[in-house]
């Protein structure tokens, strides 16, 4: 195994607001190997973007990283001065954002904005900057790049702006590219093109990618490894195959069944995860998912489950885990996670302890 380029250990980021301390990220640990594609999924407010911002030192007041270490190539970024951080950002670690229009300066030409990062970091020889700018724009498949490099951002379509943002991110040949919801503002046909582009760039340049999104399909297409976040914590981690085919945390399992799939047979009902994510100021005791979990047991209300290995390379933070829940319900092993699959296993989204789930499905119903 190669050494990870990024290793986040026990990261906690809180926001100190007038209403109280918002514990946005709590005890998050993960690592990224060179050239790896890692997906971080979760709903709004789960802490996925704050985690990324913390890595880049972009968390602003009233937010503050209150604990942990962010080791990049063996050095802790949290101990860096502002100046040292600036040398890393845009050079070794680059970030692309959800909304390409508001991330670009409307009064500067696209080419200038791509070149700016290269001039700032002195990694690319000065004479090479302009040709490289055009080359990058061509690489992200903007047609007629020689001419379009002189355009202003408003002359670009949404998809082209996101391509230009990616060109900026890649300009200094970073080791790690963090993409925060890079396709959320785009139409599906454009989204598919951008994802394909990121996939190709990962193969060609060897840059590791952290993709942050709420869209499970997008993650399945690009990422080899996936982290699932809920209420500021990582609840499950595993390879894409494990997360999508054998999820062990009830939240991951429920989420997969709550999203309509284009390839699913029709007529089934979506699983609805009742209730709302918890208030990050006033978190529930024990497991943070317990108020919405259909598989909770007594222990979930009092003790927070640690993240533990559930299979080789797969970790989950759950006292029950789906495998045990299935076994206790006599439903065999998890074979299919699409909505409507294994119907009868889940009692229609009601929040019930396992014993009642068992009763509701009549014990051993088989899968």
């Amino acid at each position, binding site marked *: 195994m190669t050494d990870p380029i990024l290793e986040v250990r026990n990261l906690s980021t809180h926001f100190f607001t007038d209403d109280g301390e918002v514990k946005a990220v709590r005890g998050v640990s993960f690592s990224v190997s060179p050239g790896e594609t890692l997906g971080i999924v979760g709903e709004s407010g789960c802490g996925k973007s704050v985690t990324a911002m913390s890595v880049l030192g972009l968390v602003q007041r009233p937010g503050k990283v209150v604990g942990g270490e962010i080791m990049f190539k063996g050095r802790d970024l949290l101990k860096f001065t502002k100046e040292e951080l600036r040398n890393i950002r845009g050079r070794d670690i680059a970030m692309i954002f959800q909304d390409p229009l508001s991330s670009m300066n409307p009064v500067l030409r696209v080419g200038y904005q791509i070149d700016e990062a290269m001039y700032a970091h002195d990694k690319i020889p000065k004479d090479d900057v302009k040709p490289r700018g055009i080359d990058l724009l061509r690489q992200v498949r903007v047609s007629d790049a020689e001419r379009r490099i002189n355009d202003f951002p408003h002359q670009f379509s949404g998809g082209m702006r996101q391509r230009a943002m990616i060109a900026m991110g890649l300009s200094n040949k970073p080791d790690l590219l963090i993409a925060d919801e890079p396709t959320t503002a785009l*139409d599906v046909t454009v989204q*598919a093109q951008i994802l394909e582009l990121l996939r190709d760039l990962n193969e060609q340049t060897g840059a590791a990618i952290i993709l942050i999104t709420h869209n499970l399909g997008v993650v*399945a*297409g690009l990422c080899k490894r996936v982290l699932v976040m809920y209420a500021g914590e990582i609840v499950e981690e595993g390879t894409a195959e494990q997360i999508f085919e054998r999820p062990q945390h009830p939240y991951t399992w429920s989420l997969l069944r709550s999203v*309509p799939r*284009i390839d699913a047979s029709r007529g089934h*009902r979506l699983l*609805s*995860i009742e209730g709302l994510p918890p208030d990050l100021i006033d978190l529930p005791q024990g497991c943070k998912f317990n108020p919405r979990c259909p598989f909770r047991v007594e222990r979930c209300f009092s003790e927070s489950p640690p993240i533990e290995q559930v299979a080789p390379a797969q970790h989950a933070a759950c006292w029950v885990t789906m495998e045990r829940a299935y076994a206790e319900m006599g439903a065999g092993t998890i074979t299919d996670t699409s909505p409507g699959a294994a119907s009868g296993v889940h009692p229609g989204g009601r929040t019930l302890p396992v014993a009642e789930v068992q009763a509701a499905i009549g014990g051993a119903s088989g899968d």
Partner: protein
Amino acid sequence: MTDTVVAPAARITPAVEPLLRVVNVVKYFGAGVGASVKAVDGVSFDILPGETVGLVGESGCGKSTLGRLITQLIPVTSGEVYVDGVDITKLRGENLRQQRKQLQMIFQDPYASLDPRMTVGDIIAEPLVNFKMISGRAKDARVQELLRTVGLNPYFNNRYPHEFSGGQRQRIGIARALALNPKLIICDEPVSALDVSIQAQIINLLEDLQREFALTYLFIAHDLSVVRHISNRVMVMYLGKIVEVAPSEDLYTSQEHPYTRALLSSIPVPDPRIESKRRLVELSGEIPSPLNPPSGCRFHTRCPIAQVPGVCADVEPPLELKAAGHLAACHFSDQVRTKIAVTV
């Protein structure tokens, strides 16, 4: 301008009168001297009572404009919209107001579509008060009944919108739409602003309400997975025109229009094995401007199988029946599935 097309449902079951019949509706927005944005350009379809018809397309295709034309929130440039046999584009003032009771709308943004200074009770009761249908005690009772119907605590009627989450606000918007017992509800991107785990709650609620109150939906959204899940039939729009209408069951397995096939090939599914085999149908270029749409078939500039120069650039294909209940506007629909390879 295109020919009037009769939607397939009307042909299959002529005995049932459509609840909504849209005939050759056109909407041009003025854009300076001599120019106009052809937002909706000759659209015709029927919706039968109790049906859910989905309308999908990418941003700027005219789907939201079409929804607003059907409710007459904006006037049509030409064409007719029949609701229960009455052409509401010809109605004005009080007559239009009375006819509109049957049509309600659910909006995309649950934050912008509720007045922050009104209580939830007043918001839901506003349509009832507006039509002087109810007052006093009976009004409060009806509001509480509606709150219960959409799964909210009936005693929340004195609270304000800011006290609710996005999903709860969308439930309030749905309660308001139900207040007048409408026949047709136009849902314009009702779940796209909501979080994934909340989307399923609202989709399930809409399905339950349809069963309970025999509602008819026109479900407008850009997310084809959501649209296909909830709809009986799906209409695909491109640059102001409907290019394909298909029963939801058929849409995923058989497409008669290249645009629909491209759209389907770009929707990611949460399954890494399928994703690794995905082949994207590359559409060349960008969506053309609706100010000056391409000649002939509007999709010919991006179509992988278009004959240009030739019939695709010269002749506009009519929306016609290709299979049972399945309409498409393409000269070469028989080649769509053989010539455009995807994994789906």
